[in-house]
């Protein structure tokens, strides 16, 4: 296999493969994607895969997510059916105090053009008949939806490969150096040289950054998710806490635990998640749970994406974020713009790694 490429992407998950695909649509230089295993062994293969905007705060971050959500229909046209469904997003609440919070949220978002409705109890039950009748209300946004993460990454890879992108999997990167304007990437199987280097290491971004003396402060936040057997379609929306996939299974879960890279599950969280799911949709009680899996969120220290150039290191780009599924079309587009046009169509300086006061260490 060739060892010199104009651009190397480290990490073939939803963010890395998303970048490789979007780049391959415009970029004529050679692109190589390196993954230490096969794509989707990380967060991209263990996610509820919401494409979610509303109640992401503050509003500029919600706006950022909205731009990405709006790209999804076009993405599906270009790379094929990824089972993207803009179902509308419901975030139910069961106490009147939350209504005040919901109204404030809706108001804050109206200012930046994101329509969030605060539904009454009747409106919620009309939209989602299976919802617990004790529901008091919900915030609702029509832009929210979900996607099949396995198809999304698979279709990104197929489209990228069709455009000439190379993938080298089960090939872990062990060292990176930069001399006279070029990067040398040492991996298990090979040593590569490239001009542009894109770090898309997901939950392992910190370790990847350290190879170049760069601080990419991404922590691990575990989520446990229950999967039911496939059921006849009955849930119409993506509900914050659960959704029904095209194949009919219901995915349930919204938990957060700091457990590093430990991807085991515990009956404690599984039973709590079951309580939450039944509290939202009581008619799920007879449905059988066939699996409980857990995924590790790649959570940047301040919770916001780290996207863009790395100051002080020419032609080095980083893309490390939570909500990688929602944001992958936008991040793919932005990184491609940085490489092709040297600037992005929307401002991303808020998301620059420089906010962590990073310079090249040592």
């Amino acid at each position, binding site marked *: 296999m060739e060892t010199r490429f104009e651009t190397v992407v480290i990490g073939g998950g939803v963010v890395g493969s998303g970048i490789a695909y979007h780049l391959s649509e415009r970029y004529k230089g050679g692109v190589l994607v390196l993954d230490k295993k096969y794509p989707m062994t990380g967060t991209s293969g263990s996610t509820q895969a919401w494409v979610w905007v509303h109640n992401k705060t503050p509003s500029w971050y919600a706006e950022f997510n909205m731009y990405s959500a709006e790209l999804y229909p076009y993405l599906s046209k270009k790379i094929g059916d990824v089972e993207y469904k803009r179902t509308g997003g419901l975030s139910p609440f069961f106490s009147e105090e939350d209504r005040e919070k919901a109204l404030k949220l809706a108001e804050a978002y109206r200012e930046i053009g994101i329509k969030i409705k605060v539904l009454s109890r009747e409106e919620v039950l009309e939209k989602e*008949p*299976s919802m617990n009748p004790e529901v008091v209300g919900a915030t609702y946004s029509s832009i929210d939806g979900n996607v099949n993460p396995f198809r999304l990454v698979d279709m990104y890879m197929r489209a990228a490969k069709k455009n000439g992108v190379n993938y080298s999997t089960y090939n872990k990167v062990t060292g990176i150096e930069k001399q006279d304007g070029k990067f040398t990437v040492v991996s298990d199987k090979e040593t590569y040289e490239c001009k542009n280097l894109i770090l898309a290491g997901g939950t392992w971004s910190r370790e990847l950054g350290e190879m170049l003396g760069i601080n990419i402060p991404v922590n691990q936040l575990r989520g446990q998710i229950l999967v039911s*057997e*496939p*059921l*006849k379609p*009955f849930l119409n929306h993506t509900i914050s806490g659960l959704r029904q996939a095209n194949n*009919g299974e219901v995915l349930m879960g919204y938990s957060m635990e700091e457990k590093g890279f430990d991807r085991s599950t515990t009956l404690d969280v599984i039973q709590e998640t079951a309580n939450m799911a039944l509290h939202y949709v*009581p*008619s*799920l*009680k*007879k*449905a*059988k749970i066939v699996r409980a899996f857990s995924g590790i969120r790649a959570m940047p220290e301040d919770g916001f994406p780290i996207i863009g150039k790395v100051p002080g290191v020419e032609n080095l780009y980083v893309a490390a974020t939570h909500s990688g599924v929602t944001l992958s079309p936008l991040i793919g587009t932005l990184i491609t713009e940085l490489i092709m046009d040297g600037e992005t169509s929307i401002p991303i300086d808020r998301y620059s790694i420089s906010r962590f006061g990073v310079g090249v260490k040592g």
Partner: protein
Amino acid sequence: MHIKDHPVLGKQLQEPVTIYFKDQPYQAYQQQTVAAALIANDIKKFGVSRKNIQDRGLFCSRGRCCSCYMTVNGEDHVRTCMTRVEEGMEIYPNLEDPEVRRDGNGD
């Protein structure tokens, strides 16, 4: 066909039980599983698969493969190889995904 007199274990089938498959009565015995009782009555097709609608029946009889899924007394996806017969049991083949809506407003 029930083995009334087993060559080694002798006459083991003592208390008869009536079960209903697709609303028809069939003869079973106390300690038999639903799957076994149906097979004794020459009913081997317990349901169909989801994607290609292929016939499914007993395979592992250890409660692992779920090929013996049937609807028993109103509950879907029961592992009939692990469920003992009871008098008056109502059994239907597993032909489609479970429907949750009807449980919601029922009991």
